[in-house]
């Protein structure tokens, strides 16, 4: 061939800044999200330091609000979502036998938009903490309800709006890339119903992303014009309605929470069969359950707004739909348990994290079910009970599944086994502290402690002290992970990993060497 393309790996800064390689871009995403996880974690430490004792001691209330706001935003958009995109980048081409993502340059663009977006957001936090005159960062909660974010939003809100636009562009392009890769790049013989469940869950997640990120963009655009161009979308005096903001936001927001959990389902569905040495129980039902969760997630959004004053019929509709969504979720939990049933189980670290996920996520699902009962939610809404609910599904759910994924695939990425000792320390330390941190929140929430306040009534003092201890402990525990990662990725110290890594592992990713070479599946494998 005249125009032969040598596929050599670029080196130095060009390799990382100008990459078109799914593995390198995947690594960039993963490290970026880990960095955001630590930054967001630091903000949470400020929150918990203030709440350790009743009364005001560390920060002033406005700064406290900025902490809850930016903690939530950074964790959702900076830590959890990019982590899963990074995983998708690394694993989907390997799992379906593709040479790369379908649109490699756009892939790199999706990534590099994120540092731009988050330097703006984090910049406003730094300005608020250290800048001249301490101009406040966004302080209206991660849900940025109007009119807090329109009429009363600080000047940084505009930068926040534009950075949300950037995050949206990044997510949409990333999602388009995933869908096109899955639909168009599968190796011969890799039919849809043979795809690993992680690929399925990401395919559906990507659909959700493309469907709802533009709606979020619409919401922030209306905010922007309300703030600066005199429109009245969220202003009743002009015929608009602040509640309209909540509807638009949650039409995005509820599918968004599934965007953060469906890939986690995929990860766990990959890990449990490996360490149970049994194929996944009910593969097809898993696919259908994922799809029905995704579809239902479009018609439950107003369960976040039961107390806003909706017509009764609306409340009933959203209550029943929300309850319905627990059914496919229950199917999944059942299938994971059934996979383990009579398997020859071993409990390596990925399996430990996956098991912790199944149990703790289920607790979060159950508190969700309690919240879905409209009259009960009137009591629980905006209390620490809600905070407990979503941290169980997001921290001990989504983030634990990320940890599981990291321990599971790290040998494939780095070529060496993780440090087992510090890995175990990381696991047990996180497991105990995460429960110390979030379980008591159920109690203080049910007893009436509201969320998003810098202070609380005296009767909540004891629990809050323990919660803060759990928080600091959990925060410090993540440094063990940092060490495990540095050791495997940079020092390359550890037992050399085999190609298969795990005895019971199945899938194309285990047929390539460890570490996976720069280019894999240049000629597609044939799947039987």
């Amino acid at each position, binding site marked *: 061939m005249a125009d032969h393309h040598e596929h050599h790996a670029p080196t130095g800064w060009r390799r990382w800044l100008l990459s078109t390689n799914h593995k390198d871009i995947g690594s960039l995403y993963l490290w970026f999200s880990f960095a955001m996880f630590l930054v967001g974690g630091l903000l949470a430490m400020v929150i918990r330091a203030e709440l350790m004792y009743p009364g005001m001691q560390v920060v002033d209330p406005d700064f406290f609000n900025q902490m809850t706001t930016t903690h939530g935003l950074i964790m959702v958009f900076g830590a959890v979502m990019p982590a899963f995109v990074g995983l998708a980048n690394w694993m989907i081409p390997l799992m379906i036998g593709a040479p790369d993502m379908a649109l490699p340059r756009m892939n790199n663009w999706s990534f590099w938009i994120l540092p731009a977006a988050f330097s703006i957001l984090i910049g406003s936090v730094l300005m608020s903490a250290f800048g001249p005159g301490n101009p406040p960062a966004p302080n209206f909660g991660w849900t940025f309800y109007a009119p807090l974010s329109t009429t009363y939003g600080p000047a940084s809100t505009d930068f926040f709006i534009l950075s949300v636009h950037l995050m949206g562009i990044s997510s949409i392009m990333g999602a388009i890339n995933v869908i096109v890769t899955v639909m168009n790049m599968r190796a011969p013989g890799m039919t849809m119903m043979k795809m690993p469940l992680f690929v399925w869950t990401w395919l559906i997640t990507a659909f959700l992303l*493309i469907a709802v990120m533009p709606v979020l963009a619409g919401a922030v655009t209306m905010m922007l014009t309300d703030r600066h161009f005199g429109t009245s979308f969220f202003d009743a005096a002009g015929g608009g309605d602040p509640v309209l903001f909540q*509807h638009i936001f949650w039409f995005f927001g509820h599918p968004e929470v599934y965007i953060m959990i469906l890939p986690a389902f995929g990860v766990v569905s990959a890990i449990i069969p490996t360490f149970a040495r049994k194929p996944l129980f009910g593969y097809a039902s898993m696919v259908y359950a994922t799809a029905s969760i995704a579809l239902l997630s479009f018609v439950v959004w107003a369960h976040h707004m039961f107390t806003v004053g909706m017509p009764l019929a609306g409340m009933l509709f959203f209550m029943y739909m929300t309850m319905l969504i627990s059914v496919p979720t229950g199917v999944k939990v059942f299938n994971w348990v059934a996979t383990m049933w009579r398997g020859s189980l071993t409990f390596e670290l990925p399996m430990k994290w996956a098991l912790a996920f199944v149990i703790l996520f289920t607790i979060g699902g159950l508190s969700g079910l309690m919240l879905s009962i409209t009259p009960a939610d009137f009591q629980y809404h905006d209390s620490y009970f809600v905070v407990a609910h979503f941290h169980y599904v997001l921290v001990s759910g989504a983030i634990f599944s990320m940890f599981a994924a990291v321990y599971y695939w790290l040998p494939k990425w780095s070529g060496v086994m993780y440090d087992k000792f510090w890995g175990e320390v990381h696991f047990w330390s996180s497991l105990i502290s995460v429960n110390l941190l979030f379980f008591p929140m159920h109690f203080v929430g049910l007893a009436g402690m509201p969320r998003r306040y810098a202070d609380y009534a005296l009767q909540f003092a004891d629990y809050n002290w323990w919660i803060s201890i759990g928080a600091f402990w959990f925060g410090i525990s993540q440094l063990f992970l940092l060490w495990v990662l540095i050791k495997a990725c940079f020092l390359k110290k550890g037992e050399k990993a085999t190609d298969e890594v795990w005895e019971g592992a199945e899938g194309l990713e285990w047929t390539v060497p460890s570490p996976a070479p720069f280019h894999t599946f240049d000629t597609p494998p044939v799947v039987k």
Partner: protein
Amino acid sequence: MSEKTTSYYVPDSSPWPLLGSVGLFLIAIGGGNYLQQSTSKVANDGTMGGIVLTIGVLWMIGVMFMWWRDTIKESIGGLHSEQMDRSYRQGMLWFIFSEVMFFGAFFGAMFYARWLIVPWLGGEGTGAMTHELLWPDFQAMWPVTTTPDGRTTQAMGAWGLPMINTAILLTSSVTLSIAHHALLAGDRAKVLWAQGITIILALIFTGVQGYEYVHAYRDLGLTLEAGIYGSLFFLMTGFHGIHVVIGSLFLIVTFFRVLKRHHMDGNNFAWEAAAWYWHFVDVVWLFLFITVYWL
């Protein structure tokens, strides 16, 4: 005709994605800063922001130009396999879907305003006390020509210019289809005149729309500040208008590529993508015409 490769083409490293992110960053910080001039919260006349914003926009145009130049080179260099072509096509369709959802947010807001907010503000349902206590004089109606706090405007009629514009846009879709058939049949002259007419119609549409805005502001008192009706009217038709401009540019580019004898050999992804985009813009307009202007 160029020879096509069979293996999937994974491009070498490229500077444009990174530079594109720099461009977006400049737009975001420049735009954010520029907006501050209209608030009393910070002392800032927005000049700095305006400059950065302008640089960012120009920068982005440059990046897009260079990036697409690369892909066009690859395309005519025969590096795009059929599989690659499918990737581009599917990518474009999903991009259009995301645009549909963006408009969906505004349509949703409009129906929510018409069917729920305005009747409630007028005292229906659970809104009785809001109405009684805050704005007892407000009358529920659509379009909201008098807002609860008393701002007034006139509604934009459907049967004058908007009607003509609808006809123009629909005709442009027809001429574009003629061009498409000619493209598939390899009749280059016919592609050029049919696509040329499409582009002219597109420009007329934009001109008429601009005139309509002037009319709205000058004669009807219909402005962005005129309450929910003006907000929805200008954002919905405005975003549509922006999409018309982008679609027109897209059509103009592929027109010149046909002039340079691209696209005639079946290697026509970009041409068809532009056409899909144009039909999408057209369909959005139909919904706009029915729901914003007419009903």
